[in-house]
């Protein structure tokens, strides 16, 4: 007990010092496919205020002309698009060197999350879509094991994931 409190304190005080220093050094990659996933990411973008960010999304009419955005073709549509997408994602991560990746899905999150985790030690945050009430999404199942903060938007979904999943509320 005492050990924990001491340890907790130490981490917090270190964190306070470090967080100031890291705020400048942190860079956050915001990843989502178009449509609802994009709208959901917009809803929580206040969380990234003050940090340098860049976006990664699909090149579609609905995502056209966005600032600070990298575009890839929909990797779910063809094997060629998938392979090209992987290379481009790797290139983007090498260039931007994000410290945190955040995604609201869908499958566009899977390659950067795995590259980020295993090649760059990036911290990963995933927000499961508000559309998933009772069933985990395919992307959620893929990224759950490697994600550092995993949020769901409906309480019944907690049981379908493991103890790491968190519910603090939903957008709807």
């Amino acid at each position: 007990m005492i050990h924990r409190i001491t340890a907790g304190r130490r981490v917090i005080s270190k964190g306070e010092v470090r967080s100031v220093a890291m705020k400048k050094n942190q860079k956050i990659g915001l990843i989502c496919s178009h449509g609802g996933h994009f709208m959901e990411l917009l809803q929580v973008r206040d969380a990234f205020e003050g940090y340098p960010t860049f976006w990664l999304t699909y090149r579609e009419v609905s995502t056209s002309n966005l600032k600070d955005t990298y575009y890839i073709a929909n990797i779910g549509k063809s094997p060629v698009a998938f392979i090209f997408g992987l290379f481009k994602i790797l290139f983007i991560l090498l260039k931007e060197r994000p410290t945190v990746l955040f995604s609201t899905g869908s499958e566009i999150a899977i390659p950067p999350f795995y590259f980020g985790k295993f090649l760059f030690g990036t911290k990963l945050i995933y927000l499961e879509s508000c559309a998933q009430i009772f069933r985990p999404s395919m992307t959620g199942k893929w990224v759950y094991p490697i994600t550092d903060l995993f949020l769901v938007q409906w309480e019944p979904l907690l049981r379908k994931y493991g103890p790491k999943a968190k519910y603090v509320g939903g957008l709807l």
Partner: protein
Amino acid sequence: MIFVTVGNHFQGFERLLKKVDEIAPRIPHEIVVQKGYSKYVPQNTKYFDFVPASAAMEYIQKSDLVVSHAGMGTIILCKEYGTPILIFPRREKFREHFNDHQMEIAQVLEKRGDKNIYIAYEENQLEEKIREGVGKRGIAQVENRGRENLVRTIKEFIETFQG
């Protein structure tokens, strides 16, 4: 104006478009249809396939009613803007989606009884529900506790994690 939207899903949503087109001449409102990947071409309304998200948001904000598939982007925005929405879920059995999660969304929302959210499960309910919902504007929801909790949780995580 009534804005009908089927979102960005790769499958079409012909049932909704056909019925809206049939109803359109009887409804005394301008109707604009975002038809997405649907094949059906509306004869009685304005329509387009896709627009930038900012334009879609403007349509949703200005509409007297949004008629939509159970897509989360649209539902969340309607709630935020106070725009009434009539939800008509895509069904797996008609190959409108790859599972029936839109049905689950509609049922959960119906049970919860959110204001200004109307649900239709069958095409023949659409006309009546459109007439019921049009113009029933609610109060724009500036604050959203769920959203604030999510933002705070994400923010705190970024601030406190030790690399």
